[in-house]
């Protein structure tokens, strides 16, 4: 079932605009992720799709039909809530039977569907327990069970894993991926965790302050972020940003900062020139920690950033180093076996093909064609 959000707006009576001009077409069976920091409007948008919040502007279409005024029960959706929202006085079985009983399905069909859902989610042994006798992970599975028994065409998930510990979250991520393949439903999933977003979604909607920043595949968000916010939000550790000054030469553009100089590729130089940047202009350099490599005591300083090590973190398979560059901090990921200590001078080689350049004013990515 397809879902279209056309110029959706949400303004509360006190004038606060939670969602601004949200546009998105979700294809049938697509797994869409809404991601962003707290208060960015992602849950509000999901609740508008569910019918739990009024839409103050725009149009919501489900399978081509306008659904702005439709009751949640008439939208053919199921929802998994952040804090499970299980009915505490009902057993696991009754919780899962509840939507089916309301739909007035025959008893045999109800039993068959509950049995199937509990088998998929491994709830067979828990069917006669009440929610207060279940662990967090089990409750989450029951909440999913209650949603999937209805064979919903659209499944909405509002931060379903946020109350679980890291290990369980990893397991449940795999379960959700399997579930999506099995159910073939359209899934809209809200999270503030970029790892969940990157691993689960076919497409990701990045939001900030009620605005959509970018809608794209996980790969494109990582490699071609539309702006500085998306670049900083996607990826861990997050992208480094450095203020640089442009210098035009006959061979191409250079980026300079104190004793560090980066030579841009001809394509990058052309794009920068096309966008109106000339010698003396400031530009924000974005470089991911994994695209920096340490060259301690090296003589070759081409495309290098010089700095002093402030923190060294040994992680086993790799290490993180945090370097102070002219008062600005940047992080780099080093392969195993690289050691340095606080106060060491370090020269970081920049993979020039992997850099991003942002307009300091508009924060847009200047290298996106």
């Amino acid at each position, binding site marked *: 079932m397809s879902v279209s959000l056309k110029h959706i707006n949400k303004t509360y009576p006190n004038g606060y605009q939670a969602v601004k001009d949200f546009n998105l077409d979700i294809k049938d069976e697509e797994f869409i992720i809404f991601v962003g920091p707290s208060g960015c409007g992602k849950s509000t948008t999901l609740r508008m799709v569910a019918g*739990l919040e009024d839409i103050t502007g725009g149009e919501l279409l489900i399978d081509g039909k306008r659904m702005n005024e439709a009751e949640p029960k008439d939208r053919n959706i199921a929802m998994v809530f952040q804090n499970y929202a299980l009915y505490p006085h009902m057993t696991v079985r009754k919780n899962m039977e*509840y939507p089916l009983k309301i739909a007035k399905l025959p008893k045999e069909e109800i039993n068959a569907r509950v049995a199937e859902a509990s088998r998929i989610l491994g709830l067979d042994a828990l069917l006669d327990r009440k929610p207060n006798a279940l662990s967090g992970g089990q409750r989450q599975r029951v909440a999913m069970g209650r949603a999937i028994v*209805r064979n919903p065409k659209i499944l909405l998930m509002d931060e379903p894993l946020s109350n679980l510990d890291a290990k369980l979250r990893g397991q449940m991520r795999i379960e959700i991926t399997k579930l999506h393949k099995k159910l073939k439903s359209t899934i809209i999933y809200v999270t503030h965790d970029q790892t969940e977003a990157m691993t689960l979604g076919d497409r990701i909607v990045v939001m900030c302050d009620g605005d959509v920043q970018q809608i794209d595949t996980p790969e494109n968000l990582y490699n071609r972020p539309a702006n500085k916010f998306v670049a900083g939000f996607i990826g861990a550790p997050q992208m480094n940003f450095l203020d640089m000054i442009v210098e035009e030469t006959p061979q191409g553009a250079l980026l300079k900062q104190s004793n560090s100089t980066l030579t841009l590729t001809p394509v990058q130089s052309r794009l920068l020139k096309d966008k109106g940047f000339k010698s003396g202009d400031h530009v924000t350099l974005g470089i991911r920690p994994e695209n920096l490599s340490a060259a301690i005591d090296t003589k070759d300083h081409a495309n290098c950033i010089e700095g002093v090590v402030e923190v060294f973190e040994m992680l086993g398979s790799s290490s993180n180093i945090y370097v102070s560059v002219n008062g600005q901090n940047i992080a780099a990921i080093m392969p195993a076996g690289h050691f340095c200590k606080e106060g060491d001078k370090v020269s970081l080689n920049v993979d020039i093909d992997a850099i991003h350049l942002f307009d300091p004013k508009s924060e847009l990515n200047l290298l996106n064609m």
Partner: protein
Amino acid sequence: MEKAIRKSVKKPKEKTNWVLTIILILGTFTVFFPLYMAINIAFKQPSEMTNSIEGALGLPSSINFSNFAEAMRVTDFWHSLGNSLFITLATIALALVVYSLAGYVLGRTIAKHKGFKWVYLYLISGMFVPFAILMMPLVKETAMLHLGNQFGVILLYLVFYMPMNVMLYAGYMKNIPTVIEEASEVDGASTWTTFWRVIFPMMKPMHATVAVLTALGTWNDVMTPLVIMSGTGINTLPIAQLNFQTQFGTNYNLAFASYIMSLIPILLFYIICQKQIISGVANGAVKG
């Protein structure tokens, strides 16, 4: 050796708070002394009720139930009990439905709409209107509406107990997260279904509290049935017990025997609900 170790780790003796102990003993005495007197007098014969201290406080010379049998005859016990049970149980059943519905609506809407806050305050203000002021107009009104019977009494009880109990239910709604209702709504339920199948069962502790408070009030009440049902020949137990007071005196032995008998049903009801009422009162008090 083990014994020696156990002795050595013996807990230090806790200090007794004598002031609190004495207050608690006095409190216990004020509850148990009248109860002792009631049971004692119920089993005594009128001839044993002398003015001496022994006559007043001493135990009965023999245990016999003649007072109880006589009290049952005088009060037409089974009929009166039937009327009291009917009025009390019907009031409780209606109270749970009406008050929980009102409490649900008010509990959920007070914060959202100012108008409902005024409705809530209007209802609560009913707590401060004394029954004596309303008594005469109510007698006239119920008579005009042909409600000078058990149904009129039940209706009035529903009105009188509404402020307190709606306040308890509305306060208790804060303990039930709204996301539960949203989940039910997404599961396909209407507001009505959500209330009956999700919210109403979740209000169980408050149902117990309201049931006990309402039962105590209606079971022991004399005034309302007396003024509303006077002249109809329908008696509740408290009205029937007025028969023990005559212009020449009061037959305390029969009266107390009757009081003890009428105490038993309400005591049983309280014991059944006790487990729930403790959490119910606490929840309502903290969140209300």
